[in-house]
């Protein structure tokens, strides 16, 4: 009984915070045509070449960020668990930094150090700027990616599995590919989806580096149109929701998850 009360309270708070605003926004986004509900605003937004362009750009950036993140994080996290458990607190500290240093500060720093008159003038060229934002996003996603992979590694006995594989004749490459990666695959995916959602919605980096991604497009729409921003927000929410649902699905229905129950 008391448990039920709490469940209701949790659902209510969730509703007040997330769902009520969403529903209101959704309802509003349908009212572009006077007097009737229609998906007119969505048609307009999805048909806007600027939307397609910025959204596509952000998707590509997100995918590249994920690849970069996986390549950096998985071997690092594995090696640290296996051989350098003593430096784990240090690494955890480093990966937490992007959470607490405001993105504004990071971007200011980037612009300052990699500007056109610096020793590495990244902001001067199209490629450079894109590299810069890619690294920036990889930094932003570091906490989530590292946590996800590290949590995944925690559920298996990294040291013993590695030794078992070694005693059966396997070398490092095979161990990483056939023993470690398959067992943290779900964790990597969940980190990847979080990264995807974050990069798609990111505003400050893109705006200050003058890049035409989805975040600035949303804000621009928000200050210049009436119904389209709501439609956009609903679309953005749907994307992130889909990502989250995928994470949950993967976690729940993977064979490995069952093993842990």
């Amino acid at each position, binding site marked *: 009984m008391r448990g039920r009360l709490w469940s209701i309270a949790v659902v209510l708070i969730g509703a007040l915070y997330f769902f009520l605003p969403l529903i209101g926004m959704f309802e509003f986004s349908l009212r572009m045509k006077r007097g009737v509900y229609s998906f007119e605003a969505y048609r307009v937004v999805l048909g806007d070449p600027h939307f397609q362009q910025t959204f596509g750009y952000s998707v590509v950036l997100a995918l590249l960020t994920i690849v970069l993140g996986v390549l950096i994080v998985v071997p690092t996290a594995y090696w640290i668990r296996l051989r350098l458990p003593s430096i784990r607190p240090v690494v955890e500290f480093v990966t937490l930094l992007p959470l607490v240093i405001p993105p504004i500060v990071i971007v200011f720093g980037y612009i300052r150090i990699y500007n056109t008159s610096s020793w590495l003038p990244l902001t001067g060229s199209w490629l450079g700027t894109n590299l810069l934002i890619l690294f920036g996003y990889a930094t932003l996603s570091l906490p989530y990616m590292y946590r996800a992979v590290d949590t995944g590694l925690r559920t298996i006995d990294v040291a013993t599995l590695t030794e*078992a594989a*070694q*005693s*059966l*004749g*396997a070398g490092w490459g095979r161990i990483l590919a056939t023993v470690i990666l398959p*067992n943290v695959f779900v964790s990597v995916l969940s980190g990847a989806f979080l990264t995807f959602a974050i990069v798609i919605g990111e505003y400050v980096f893109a705006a200050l580096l003058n890049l035409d991604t989805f975040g600035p497009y949303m804000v621009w729409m928000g200050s210049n149109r009436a119904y389209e921003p709501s439609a956009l927000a609903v679309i953005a929410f749907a994307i992130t929701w889909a990502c989250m649902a995928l994470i949950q699905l993967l976690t729940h229905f993977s064979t*490995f998850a069952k093993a842990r129950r």
Partner: protein
Amino acid sequence: MAFLDLSHLEKSFGATRVVKDFDLSIEKGEFVSFLGPSGCGKTTVLRMVAGFEKPTTGTIRIDGRDVTRLKPNQRNIGMVFQAYALFPNLTVAQNVGFGPKVAGMAKAEIGERVEEMLKLIGLPDLGDRFPWQLSGGQQQRVALARALAVRPQVLLLDEPLSALDAKIRVSLREEIRALQKELGITTIFVTHDQEEALSMSDRVVVMHEGKAAQVGSPFEIYTWPKTRFVASFVGTLNLLEGEVIDAGRMRLDGIEVPVARGLDGRGTGEPVTVALRPEAVSLGLNGSGLAGTVESVAFLGAVVRTRVKLGRQTITLDSFNQTATRPPEPGAPVRLMFGADDLLVLGED
């Protein structure tokens, strides 16, 4: 030369020497247990044989080949871990076939080997299961099959039974021993459980502070422990203070008792400590023996443990529970009997 030869092995972590000048020769097909408390270095020796730790000094030879500097994946050794360590993403068959696959065997051949191994461990139909679908005992048997599938020269078992329930532990230790005998594979078994070590092994190495305190057959280890540590770690023990009379007798609590061995070279009147196993003492309610008073009686099931006050000393004795006779009551006068063979004069550690 022995099949597996460890000579002058030493291992230090930082300033701590966990293994000190360790020598051991194991014959082909022998089953040797390393027995000792945690921290005695038994696992470190095993891990050096496996290649997971590099010896600080010393050499390891397998069948005459020096493997001291080889990596673990170059040693052709089978290892079974306490935590099973099956690959959770692979089926039982894939787990067992992992080693052969790494070794580059043909697919059909791998299939045959896996089938053979699963039959060997008595789980021929579970090839398609995942590890989490098996019980602990089954998982450990699969781990054994996986280790054996590469036809290793040496099988290393690192406390493979300690994560299992008591009943499964007993049945699995018999299975492991039978399998080892059938395959004739040279085996090292690490354990802190004296019953496991004594019941399974051809020879037992009792380890203490990085050294082999005693090496011998289970019967020798139990019956003639060399040091006080071995005597007290293997089984329970009464320690009695007395003084030497001559090479064959000592005085215990004012009474002269014969001692079969161990008193040679000690002077008359010299104080001496002897050990006495609780099960070597029996109660003679009337008649000869040392007179004492029952202090407490604990009923442990099959065994009744009686504490008897004997002058200033207390002796614990174990006897089987007998349906016909109730155990004695505290306060009852009793007489204790034991043989000259049962008094162990212990050396220093």
